[in-house]
């Protein structure tokens, strides 16, 4: 009772990274709150994944298995989640901010009248004193997220409603297995008692899930372009530099919106979060929307012809000038010096 439950997302028989990241975060929150960390695993033939959840600190896996639950569907999955939360009364419930988590979590929060904060970038435990009533609260979940297009950082709390629910994007939290798996147990949910035929009125008739082709998250070097790169053609220079340095190309939201790069390359609050060894920001102004997704990079180089661009302020090296001159010079210099 009053534990932390992490919703576990699976795709193609494996656990999504974001769920393992949330377990890692949930483990430390549970230690702080002296409560248990639990997982909710829904699917078809997914029981064997429990071992991995134990390795990431889940002490109990609530397992809902059924042939009809092969793929995520809003109604049956939310019915199971709502029913479990009603029984278990978790104090905190975390979901990945994925197409699944962002479809499921609001539905659950609406049914339970519990608050939900989307796309948190940080989760902490803390107290609160209500200004009007003077009522004090301990051990609330601080749900910290950028808002207003990323121009402010808001700390959200749910003082009186449980569970305190939040979604977190993939890559925002660190994923760390325990040295030794906990001795957890599996608790089966009787799906047939919860799910009715009426929950399957929306039918999936076709599904194409592609393996992620672009892996900017795992790349040690990222060359990211913004709107200032100017065109899709100019982005080729970035690919040239990336291939020389053994890196990947990323993009800001403005560059993706302008069609310079594909959405899978988007870095920032509404894209992926990265922390490479080297981040080269080209023609990126440096709005918080973007920097929220890259400011943890070990080293940042900014290239921008506007000396006042905010990106220069978070850069270790700020190069003021034209990318069409600078990038070829970087390539030339690297080729001369790398041997």
């Amino acid at each position, binding site marked *: 009772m009053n534990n932390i439950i992490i919703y576990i997302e699976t795709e193609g028989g494996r656990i999504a990274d974001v769920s393992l990241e949330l377990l890692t975060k949930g483990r430390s929150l549970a230690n702080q709150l002296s409560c248990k960390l639990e997982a909710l695993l829904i699917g078809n033939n997914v029981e064997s994944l429990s071992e991995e959840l134990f390795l990431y600190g889940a002490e109990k896996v609530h397992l809902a298995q059924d042939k009809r639950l092969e793929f995520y569907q*809003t109604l049956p999955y*939310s019915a199971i989640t709502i029913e479990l939360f009603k029984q278990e009364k978790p104090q905190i419930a975390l979901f990945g901010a*994925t*197409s699944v988590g*962002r*479809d499921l*979590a*609001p*539905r659950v929060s*609406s049914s339970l009248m519990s*608050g*939900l*904060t*989307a*796309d948190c970038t940080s989760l902490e435990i803390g107290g609160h004193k209500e200004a009007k009533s003077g009522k004090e609260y301990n051990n609330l979940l601080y749900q910290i997220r950028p*808002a*207003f*297009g990323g*121009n*402010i*950082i*808001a*700390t*959200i*709390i*749910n003082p*009186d409603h449980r569970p305190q629910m939040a979604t977190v994007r993939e890559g925002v939290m660190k994923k760390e297995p325990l040295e030794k798996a906990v001795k957890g147990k599996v608790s089966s949910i009787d799906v047939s008692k919860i799910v009715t035929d009426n929950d399957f*009125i*929306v*039918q*999936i*008739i*076709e*599904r*194409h*899930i*592609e*393996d992620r082709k672009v892996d900017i998250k795992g790349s040690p070097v990222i060359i990211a372009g913004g709107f200032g790169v100017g065109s899709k053609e100019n982005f080729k220079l970035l690919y040239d530099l990336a291939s020389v*340095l*053994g890196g990947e190309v990323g993009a800001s939201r*403005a560059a993706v919106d302008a069609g310079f790069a594909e959405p899978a390359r988007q870095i920032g*609050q509404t894209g992926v979060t990265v922390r490479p060894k*080297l981040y080269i920001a080209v023609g990126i102004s*440096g*709005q918080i929307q973007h920097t929220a997704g890259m400011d943890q990079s070990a*080293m940042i*180089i900014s290239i921008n012809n506007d000396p006042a661009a905010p990106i220069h*302020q*978070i*850069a*270790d*090296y*700020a190069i*003021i*000038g034209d990318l069409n001159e*600078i990038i070829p010079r970087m390539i030339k*210099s*690297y080729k001369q*010096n*790398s041997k």
Partner: protein
Amino acid sequence: MSKKFKIVVLAKQVPDTRNVGKNAMKEDGTVNRAALPAIFNPEDMNALEQALRLKDRFPGSEVLLLTMGPGRAAEVIREGYYRGADGGVLLTDRKFAGADTLATSYALSMAIKKISPDIIIAGRQAIDGDTAQVGPQVAEKLNLPQVTYAEDIQGFENGKLTIKRRLERGVETVQCPIPAVITVHATAPDCRPRNAKQLMRFKHARTISEEQDNEHNSYLPLNTKESMRIPEWSVSDVGGDEINYGLSGSPTKVKKIENIVFQAKESKKLTSAYEDINSLICELISSHTIG
């Protein structure tokens, strides 16, 4: 006789957070929110287009905008008219103020019950919050199925809509009976432009509050035609339990707001000269950052 739908499009007036230019920055480096223009939320435009396409395919269908906000949000309804919508309702009441996504969804769902549409279409998310919660929460409040991230509402057969969804790593096509709530992704087609005739016809459409303002501020012609009246609904018009509206209906509270101030850290300034770049690259190589 072909099918006719009553379609409600949920739309929100939002500050244009995508274009925070230098003139929107205050001296302390934070954003001056008042300086941002108010716009029709971009993905709600994609939602409107999907509704108008259904109307094209099923003549006689009706497209209504529903928006919640202060009096100036009536602009959203007019914009809808200009692009081919048949009407709209502005939900406005001080009692709605301070609503989080859940209290917003409650208010919208109460208004939707009053309109009783066949299909509800909304943008996936609004750019001021990027939460993507209101669509699914409205669906839950109405006890309706939801189809999120729609890219194309492809057709209607045997009582079901066929909808293509854009997921993170692929696409999915589903069939969904109506009534249903659909949220539309930015990758769906852009909204058609304003129609000149509609613009001329509806530019004087006003809410009662706007007309009353005009009496004091009479450079705009007074609107006398009842058909040009944009309805304003308050809590008393849509009913429901007052505790569920506004601040009291919002489980989430904002504890703290920090404005982003761009912090200066030690950054070395370099020029585009080859010597500068060459020494940087050499440094990166010797520190094993690259190579």
